[in-house]
């Protein structure tokens, strides 16, 4: 190997080992942000060739993107693994629906209440849970979320409407909206209806805002402090930091993101049910974050999109669809393939999810973002080899 190649290799490695929040310049951040914003706003266009451009689905991408970005502020930056984040999602939904019932169908107050309510809730739960670290913290958050879920189904029925879920009703006061017309009203943004694509654009704008805030946080001294806490909390104490308020702030912020996501769910479909708070929903956001890439800005959004997309596709598959897909094969093989694939689709979509989840944790702990990084590193290396 020539000295020059060794040198490039070494430089390549050094480049690969540069940590994220460090050298990224303000300019490149803003370029990435602009690209992100455009990509989000045009989702209905560029996703329609793969059959994912319709409002229901792109709304989901945006909402779960927000949820995952927020989760990542806690888990990705501080390393605290919460197993109860769905509780904040649920609280956000309930608060938003109450705002629709009592005040107005305008989505702005609904979102504000959703974020505030979940922020206060997160402050309470975080204050207690963050007194412990490691798995104790995970169990505490899980315990609080399960309590909320169980209570929402039982004694809190006056607030949550139990198993039926909280819905709009004709006789709701809606004090700011004035006398109701016939039929149930729809959500609005200062008079403009926010169902279908308009609803998506509300979610998309919130996702862009959420991304921008997360970007600022990641690049700020606060964000760096959180990453240092993840890296070595012990050192932080002897370095003069009181780590508790930092982790609590991260917890509350990420709870507020979840609350925003929850209230947006109510914006596009004004009802709220307790199942949103179940721990499986908490598990799902963990999965999205990991799949996309923990600790990265874009990863969680990608993870959320990928999971929601494949959930949508896979769960719609049935044997006829499968049969059509494997149509090109001889009949015997076709039947074989249908039988083989059958358990993984439709009702069995969760099986696929579980398998993918395991494979990611085992082989690609950095998620899709790490995969992209590896591939682009390989490409640039082979290109520089060719040129030298």
């Amino acid at each position, binding site marked *: 190997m020539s000295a020059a190649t060794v040198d490039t290799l070494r430089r390549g490695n*050094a480049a690969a*080992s*540069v*940590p994220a*929040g*460090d*050298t990224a310049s*303000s300019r490149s951040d803003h370029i990435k942000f602009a690209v992100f914003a455009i990509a989000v706003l045009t989702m209905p266009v560029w996703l329609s060739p793969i059959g994912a451009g319709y409002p229901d689905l792109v709304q989901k991408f945006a909402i779960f993107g927000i949820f995952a970005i927020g989760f990542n502020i806690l888990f990705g930056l501080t390393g605290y693994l919460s197993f109860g984040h769905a509780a904040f999602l649920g609280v956000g939904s309930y608060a938003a629906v109450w705002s629709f019932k009592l005040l107005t169908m305008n989505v702005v107050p609904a979102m504000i209440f959703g974020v505030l309510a979940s922020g206060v809730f997160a402050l309470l739960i975080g204050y207690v849970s963050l007194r412990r670290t490691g798995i104790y913290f995970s169990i505490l958050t899980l315990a609080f979320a399960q309590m909320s879920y169980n209570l929402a189904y039982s004694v809190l029925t006056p607030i949550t409407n139990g198993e039926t879920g909280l819905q709009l009703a004709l006789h709701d006061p809606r004090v700011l909206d004035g006398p109701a017309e016939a039929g149930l009203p729809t959500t609005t943004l200062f008079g403009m209806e926010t169902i279908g694509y308009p609803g998506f654009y509300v979610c998309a704008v919130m996702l862009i805002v959420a991304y921008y805030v997360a970007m*600022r*946080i990641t*690049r*700020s*001294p*606060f*964000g*760096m*402090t959180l*990453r*240092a806490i*993840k*890296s*070595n909390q*012990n*050192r*932080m*104490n*002897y*370095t*003069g*930091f*009181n*780590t508790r*308020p*930092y982790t609590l*702030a991260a917890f509350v912020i990420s709870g507020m993101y979840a609350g925003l996501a929850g209230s947006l769910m109510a914006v596009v479909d004004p009802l709220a049910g307790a199942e949103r708070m179940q721990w499986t929903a908490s598990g799902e956001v963990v999965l999205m974050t990991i799949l996309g890439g923990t600790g990265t800005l874009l990863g969680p959004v990608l993870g959320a999109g990928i999971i929601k997309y494949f959930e949508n596709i896979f769960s719609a598959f049935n044997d006829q669809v499968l049969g059509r897909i494997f149509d090109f094969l001889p009949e015997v093989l076709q039947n074989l393939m249908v039988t083989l694939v059958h358990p993984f689709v439709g009702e069995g979509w969760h099986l696929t999810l579980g398998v993918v989840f395991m494979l990611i944790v085992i082989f690609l702990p950095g998620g899709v973002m790490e995969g992209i990084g590896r591939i682009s590193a390989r490409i640039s290396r082979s290109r520089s080899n060719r040129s030298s």
Partner: protein
Amino acid sequence: MAILDVQGVCKDFGGLRALNQVNLQVREGSVHAIIGPNGAGKSTLLNCFVGRLKPDTGSVTFNGKSLLGINPHEINQAGVARVFQTPEIFADLSLIENVKIPAFAKRDGAFRLDLWSRTDSHAEVRDHAEAVLEDVGLADKRHMHAGSLSRGDKRRLELAMCLVQDPKLLLLDEPTAGMSRADTNATIDLLQRIGERGITKIVIEHDMTVVFTLAHTISVMAQGAVIAEGEPEAIKGNPRVQEAYLGGAHL
């Protein structure tokens, strides 16, 4: 005047008496070495200064204020920084970030919710951090992951993380362990240079060259107690020290 005053500190671990009636006065601006065989209780003593351990009895006073019963971060904010026996650094962060973090702690205190400014927009913090990295000879590695450093470099990084805070009292637990001769000499140089800034230092060392080059005062510990204290020359000739510490061999 003593900047650090330790009186009658005892610490038991189960049945083991790790510290036994330790008294220690560290003069402001001096370099105070603590030596002694493995397991003598040297690190345990430092742990009592920084809030990692709470002594069973006794008092630790720094600049006239007790250090007992307050949190580690408060002790650091009062001006005490420590290099640990096994390097404690932020392995997942770059070197420059490793040094910026303590610099922020010094400038902004134990908690400040600065979510919105960019870290690299704080030019004075960055410049200071880079200057200190330059001082310890790690400037050209500033964008590397700290976790990928050699053991000796990790130590120097940790030293930089302490120096950037301009502490009043610097505790060094074996700062040259695992370093080559050349690196050790470089570290001695560095410590001498920062000596001029008037930082009081407590150094635990097994390397006698380091001890006798740097120290103004030496305390010798064995089995949890201070068995001798004095200027380097006096310690060299002290037969009790030779026996306890070296089993009779000559220093």
